[in-house]
């Protein structure tokens, strides 16, 4: 597979994951606001902006409505949902011959829809259903990716992009949320705090899955355990890092051991951290540092994957 093509597929997937994550977080937050006091809501929105508009170019201020619109539809906001979809579609166009027609048409349709003239009106009428629709269209794309594209190297690069982005996005979200843990993390929460943590679960599309494992008692320690360490839930950090490690072993099948060593070592180490970590230990120690460490590891893995398969120096290979 061409390095440039792998690069485009990888970034297409990352931007789509980013768009989905942002749209879901925003939808949940807008809904949650209905049950919060204005002060609580304002505080919660500071976290939303920090989690999504990242890296921050300048301090962002405004009412929740303004902020949500900005993070969804603003063309000048690099991390808006609209821009993520645009960049994903630009990448898809670069590799039009590699993805299936079904995938392309779905993404192109969504791109055209979010860039159409009617979009502002739809947004101001009903922002939450609008965002839900965005998420569901993106889910459709993911489904088409799984069912219409060959699960070859290109598909694995897409998975790698998706899970790398997910691991980073979820750990950033948790990092911001866990800065303010209650004194006893093992006690079920009561309102109003309860709603805040409920909303965190929903932002990771995790509430129902969480209830099946731990019942509807929202206990901070268990929420942390679930979102960080659950091996079977697709939006837990462990699930994402397991996939990063696995997908890395499938991409670039022709590249020899020496070239892939560094990326695989880093991914294996990260996987081990999550596979053998314990939530009690984390809560007693430095959970912020842990979550930031995950983000840093993801960046390193990304870099070494790039050095090995995409931006490598040709001279070395040819003079061998």
């Amino acid at each position, binding site marked *: 597979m*061409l390095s440039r093509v792998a690069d485009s597929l990888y970034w297409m997937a990352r931007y789509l994951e980013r768009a989905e994550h942002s749209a879901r977080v925003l939808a949940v937050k807008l809904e949650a606001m209905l049950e919060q006091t204005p002060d609580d809501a304002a505080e919660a929105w500071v976290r939303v902006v920090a989690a999504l508009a990242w890296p921050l170019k300048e301090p962002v201020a405004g009412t929740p409505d303004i902020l949500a619109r900005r993070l969804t539809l603003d063309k000048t906001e690099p991390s808006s949902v609209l821009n993520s979809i645009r960049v994903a579609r630009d990448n898809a166009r670069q590799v039009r011959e590699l993805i299936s027609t079904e995938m392309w048409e779905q993404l192109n349709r969504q791109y055209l829809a979010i860039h159409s003239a009617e979009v502002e009106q739809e947004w101001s009428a009903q922002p939450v259903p609008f965002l839900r629709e965005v998420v569901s269209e993106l889910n459709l794309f993911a489904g088409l990716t799984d069912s219409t594209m060959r699960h070859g190297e290109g598909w694995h690069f897409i998975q790698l992009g998706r899970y790398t982005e997910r691991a980073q996005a979820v750990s950033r979200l948790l990092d911001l949320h866990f800065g303010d843990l209650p004194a006893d993390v093992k006690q079920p929460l009561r309102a109003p705090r309860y709603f805040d943590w409920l909303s965190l679960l929903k932002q990771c599309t995790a509430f129902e899955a969480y209830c099946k494992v731990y019942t509807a008692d929202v206990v901070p320690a268990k929420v942390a355990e679930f979102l960080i360490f659950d091996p079977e839930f697709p939006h837990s950090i462990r699930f994402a890092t397991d996939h990063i490690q696995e997908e890395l072993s499938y991409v670039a099948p022709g590249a020899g051991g020496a070239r892939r060593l560094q990326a695989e070592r880093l991914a294996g180490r990260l996987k081990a951290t999550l596979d053998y970590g314990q939530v009690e230990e984390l809560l007693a120690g430095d959970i912020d540092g842990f979550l930031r460490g995950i983000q840093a590891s993801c960046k390193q893995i990304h870099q070494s994957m790039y050095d090995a398969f995409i931006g490598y120096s*040709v001279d070395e290979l040819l003079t061998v």
Partner: protein
Amino acid sequence: MELGKSAVRLTVVSNRARPGQDAPFATYELDRAYDEMFQSDGGPRPHAKDLYDTLCTLPIAELERRQQTCEQSFLHQGITFTVYGHEEATEKIIPTDLLPRIVPGAEWDRLERGLKQRIVALNHFLKDVYNDGKILNDGIVPRDLVFGSKHYLRQMRGVAVPLDAYVNVCGTDIIRREDGSFVVLEDNLRVPSGVSYMLANREVAKRAFGDLYRAYGVRPIEHYGQELLATLKALAAGFRDEPRICLLTPGIFNSAYYEHAFLARQMGVELVEGRDLLVHDNVVYMRTTAGVKRVDVIYRRIDDDFIDPLAFRHDSALGVPGLMNAYRAGNVVIANALGTGVADDKAVYSYVPAIIRYYLSEEPLLDVVETYRCREPQQLSHTLENLDKFVVKAVGESGGYGMLVGPHASLAEREAFRAKLKSDPDNYIAQPTIQLSTAPCFVHGGVEARHVDLRPYILHATDTRLVPGALTRVALKRGSLVVNSSQGGGSKDTWVLPT
């Protein structure tokens, strides 16, 4: 199906032929031009009758609905070009017309033989002018015409080209004269485009008129991708067993990018940009995730000038440094070969009948348009006298650029062109204005006549083949004769019938 059986049933409404009184054709007007659907007495041609009947029975609203479906489909597929406005870029679809243009099988077969003859002769010509130059020594084609052409590449002299096949993909522009005969307007021997629109138009036309399509028994064209792949593979035969083929595109900003991606997908070959390729020891490689891999055949959609910044334009960021040397060393096949533009120069065009006679000892099966070469003083003065009747074209240009359509130009435009002609006569040729044939098109909620041409795509390696179909380009403005997409033209499907 009663093709050919139906006599003219419509009566002529007035002296001025006015085909049909039925709703969609109410504003359809015939003039001097040959019409693809109607005879001069206003009745539908036998092969067009079923289409005519279908159009008369369908409500306009239904036609409109189908036209919209067809445009939606183009939009969603991304068959678009980008228009840059002041704030942001918007994407527009390439205009497509719903109604198929129908070509009877017998007419097509004659055309096909003529096209094959032509491309074979032009390949002989290219081999000759880049090697022995016999045709020049024999005085059939003037030497300075060839060597003076801006598309003649000295770097190609003596280069061995696989199978002596210089032109592997050719998109010849054909028009119909007023008497209905086909005539060649232009050979596009460099990097002809538009074949994806031929295929995309077919998809939408089949959806819009499925029953009619089946009833007509239209000849299929969907195997174009396979045929192209077979042609490219044949070029590498005896050189590499399982050749690695790629399609070289300038990238997503090129207006034909949709086509490049489409063809790569249809053939199952890599779509590469210049930055994906590199040359080492005169061998071409592409950068893959598993390291570099050798490339054997490049179907390039980049012009000669831009293909190798070391050999040609130094400012080209699209090409591959060192590619020309790898090519000269015989380590890679490039299709079309470089330097083929010398044979589709508009001045050489007028010699093609002589070229066919010279190499094949056959009479040309296809006519060319009568052409005045302004490099010859007598023909120049004839041109200057008839500037209001002629079409004047710059010899090395294409895409409708650098040309004057005399009858449609203002006095000032003609005078400006007269000055250009006088100062550089070698650079121009002139042709009488030909009324391209007209075909019914769905415009403004009705069916109206618009001028069209025909671009079939011919493939050539060990043998010469073409799929039975073509891109019919449409001049969307009423009365306009310019069909180029760069000048606001559209296109429609072409149905070649079994007989």
